[in-house]
């Protein structure tokens, strides 16, 4: 029964993950698992010093835990489900190595919890490192998702001759866009490490490390259902050996309540049927206390402050207006953004063009895994606005399409020394052709039409940088200059205030602007006129003789 619920929860998590695409309907909260996570919620609220609407969903989890106990870990948590499933796959028949110093290890998760929460209070979002929901979403985004695409495409390639023979046209022409990400390997190592730890004891992660489990265990002894052992118990200790959480003490009649996740494995394995989970308001004595030392608490307090201090003291954190990365449209101002973002990777998963990529050290320790745009890799699609829609903490604001269009992420800058037209007098106009906002115009300079960026029309989407045919680095790059980052309020109005205009006008002609130099001559060339060489006639629209 528990396994079914757990499996369904993992399926639901995966389904929401798959649904997080540009097609996501507005009513569907694809990020619901992340919203329900009270640790992520507290982390973001503390760090950002602001109540975040979506984080309030986590009160549901807290309330349910208060009422029932720490059921979340056994029934809901998709990380727990993944651990259980992979444990079953890999370690079912292995003899566990076991641990000797159990009690002190158990404290680790509380220390981590304190470190994370204190770090959050200093303004550093750090819980993402070990929060199970963030960790798993990240693992899905950076590893499972690209891998799944590769496997599916491989299968399609293999089956293609068959589909062709059967005349299945759609199937034989099917191919999925392969998303790729930086940090796939790092993410895999972290997740793999968590699974490998099961070799020591089952659910090693949940027992000793998970800070969300720690948070829930603090309040779980207040829950309604508690393990009770009746007098039929013959002290065979089968329950103790089988408890995945090590929640049963040397005396099998006693339960470490904070550790108990109510999976009821003990009740199932008991040969005497002596274990039940009745509703009870009592706080079961010595084992209901959280296993925590004062010294450890103080150390972890200090640790949290130290980490917060260290993260804040990277070269660029003091120069927030000089950061060099392009954030997704709608990202709140950089300082707040770093504090609020929980690095789940949901925006990068849902990004239609795959331009959103995780940062490594570009903005220091405090910017690990935060999303950035990589315009050389792909542009920001003008009709897509999903990244804000799926952001569980609204570090990227959920905006309407019009608002998103005005959330300028940067400005394109032409590097003339690399541009084929400026540096080599070649015929090239790809940047102007592809620009969705007519922000690149051609002006006659030294007898040639040369591309020029109109900063007031460029919203930094990056189509030009993506398409520039110069090999390697693009001759036109998007820089953060001019980006609009608002914590609240309308981007449309802000853009208007700044006299920006991202809507191309129909009569806006890039090749014959109204300036007088562009008057078109009327004469017609003779029949056998030779095709012109590379030098274009700057008096006519391109392509005409």
């Amino acid at each position: 029964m528990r396994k079914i619920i757990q499996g369904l929860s993992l399926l639901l998590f995966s389904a929401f993950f798959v649904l997080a695409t540009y097609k996501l309907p507005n009513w569907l909260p694809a990020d619901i698992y992340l919203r329900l996570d009270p640790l992520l919620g507290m982390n973001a609220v503390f760090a950002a010093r602001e109540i975040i609407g979506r984080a309030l969903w986590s009160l549901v989890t807290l309330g349910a835990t208060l009422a029932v106990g720490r059921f979340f870990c056994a029934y809901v948590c998709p990380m727990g489900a993944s651990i259980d499933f992979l444990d079953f796959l890999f370690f079912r028949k292995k003899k566990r190595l076991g641990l000797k110093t159990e009690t002190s290890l158990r404290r680790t998760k509380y220390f981590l919890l304190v470190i994370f929460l204190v770090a959050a209070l200093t303004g550093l979002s750090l819980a993402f490192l070990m929060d199970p929901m963030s960790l798993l979403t990240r693992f899905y985004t950076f590893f499972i998702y690209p891998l799944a695409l590769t496997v599916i495409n491989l299968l399609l390639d293999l089956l293609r001759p068959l589909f062709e023979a059967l005349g299945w046209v759609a199937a034989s022409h099917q191919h999925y866009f392969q998303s790729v990400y930086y940090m796939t390997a790092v993410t895999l190592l972290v997740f793999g490490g968590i699974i490998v730890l099961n070799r020591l004891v089952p659910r090693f992660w949940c027992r000793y490390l998970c800070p969300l489990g720690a948070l829930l265990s603090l309040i779980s002894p207040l829950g309604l259902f508690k393990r009770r052992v009746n007098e039929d118990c013959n002290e065979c200790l089968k329950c103790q050996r089988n408890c995945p959480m090590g929640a049963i003490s040397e005396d099998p009649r006693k339960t470490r309540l904070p550790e108990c996740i109510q999976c009821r494995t003990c009740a199932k394995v008991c040969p005497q049927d002596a274990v039940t989970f009745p509703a009870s308001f009592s706080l079961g004595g010595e084992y209901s206390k959280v296993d925590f030392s004062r010294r450890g608490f103080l150390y972890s307090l200090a640790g949290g402050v130290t980490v917060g201090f260290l993260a804040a003291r990277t070269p660029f954190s003091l120069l927030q207006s000089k950061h060099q990365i392009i954030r997704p449209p709608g990202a709140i101002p950089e300082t707040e953004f770093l504090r609020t973002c929980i690095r789940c990777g949901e925006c990068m998963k849902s990004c239609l063009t795959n331009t959103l990529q995780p940062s490594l050290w570009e903005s220091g320790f405090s910017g690990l895994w935060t999303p950035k745009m990589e315009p050389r890799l792909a542009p920001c699609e003008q009709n897509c606005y999903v990244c804000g829609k799926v952001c569980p903490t609204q570090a990227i604001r959920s905006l309407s399409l019009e608002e998103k269009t005005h959330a300028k992420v940067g400005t394109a800058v032409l590097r003339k020394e690399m541009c084929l037209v400026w540096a080599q007098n070649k015929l090239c106009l790809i940047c102007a052709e592809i620009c969705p906002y007519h922000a690149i115009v051609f002006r006659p300079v030294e007898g040639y039409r040369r591309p020029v960026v109109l900063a007031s029309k460029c919203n930094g989407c990056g189509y030009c940088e993506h398409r520039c045919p110069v090999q390697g680095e693009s001759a036109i790059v998007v820089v953060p200059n001019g980006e609009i980052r608002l914590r609240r309020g309308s981007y449309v109005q802000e853009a208007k205030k700044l006299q920006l205009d991202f809507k191309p006008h129909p009569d806006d002609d890039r090749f014959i602007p109204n300036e007088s130099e562009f008057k078109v001559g009327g004469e017609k060339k003779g029949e056998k006129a030779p095709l012109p060489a590379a030098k274009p006639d700057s008096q006519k629209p391109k392509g005409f003789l």
Partner: protein
Amino acid sequence: MSDPNQTITRRKFLKTAAAGMAVGLIGVPSFSFSKEEYDLAIISGEPVAATKKALEAIGGISRFVKKGQRVVLKPNMSFARTPDLSATTHPLVVATVAQACVEAGAPQVLVLDHTLHRPELCLERTGIREACKNISGVHVLALQERTFFREVKISKGEVLESVEIVKEILDGHILINMPVAKSHSATGVSLGMKGLMGLVWDRESFHSRFNINQAIADLGAVIRPQLTVLDATRALVSGGPGGPGEVKKPNLIIAGTDPVAVDSYGVSIVPWYGQNFKGRQVEHLLAAYQKGLGKIDIDQLKVFREKV
């Protein structure tokens, strides 16, 4: 009903059949035109009616698509734009031709393009997938993978030596090119000849390595659409190829077997960028003409005109 076109069609059918036999007997791989056959059918009217009439006037779809033959329709659906912006072929024009092909006995009609924008958005926003949804045997595809293309040598290419194009074209599918009339920032206009670049895998090199106008003419030597149906129900006369730009409404469908002639006529129907041009003034059309790919002077063409 004394519909003169009916008679023409029937007579034409017989002539075509006779011509087909003649071709078969003589083994000359070209269409032989009799007196009643037109170089171009230029029909003014609503998209569906005008398209139907244009197909009929150019000899009926059965002139091009025989029972059992598979067909590729190449509309322009390269941009994720709605039809009103005129950057893409009108979905109803595409659906009408697709339907006609199916009725002529084509077991499979592929509507395809190698899109510039993200494929799923293009299929969605252009309305072409939706319009063809209920026609059985018709598949609307955006091909974005190299595996769907194959290399072909260009023996007489001026700039191109070889090019990778959609496999089906090389596998004997009937090709009907269905461009939209629009301006183009690099080639002046983008009609049928330029639209064939949508069947090419590596288009970037056309822009960056070659003289694009000459490359288009070279491409025209290896991709020979049996029929070109130019959607000039709307024309994007500036801001092309992606738009937005000024959209005019010529309300025309222009069909013909000569790709240069169709384009050359298409150039003449509206002023581009506020200027009147002729086919000869379009560099890539002139290059195609000089390569012998078709006629460029429209006053020498035999034209069937009608308003429906």
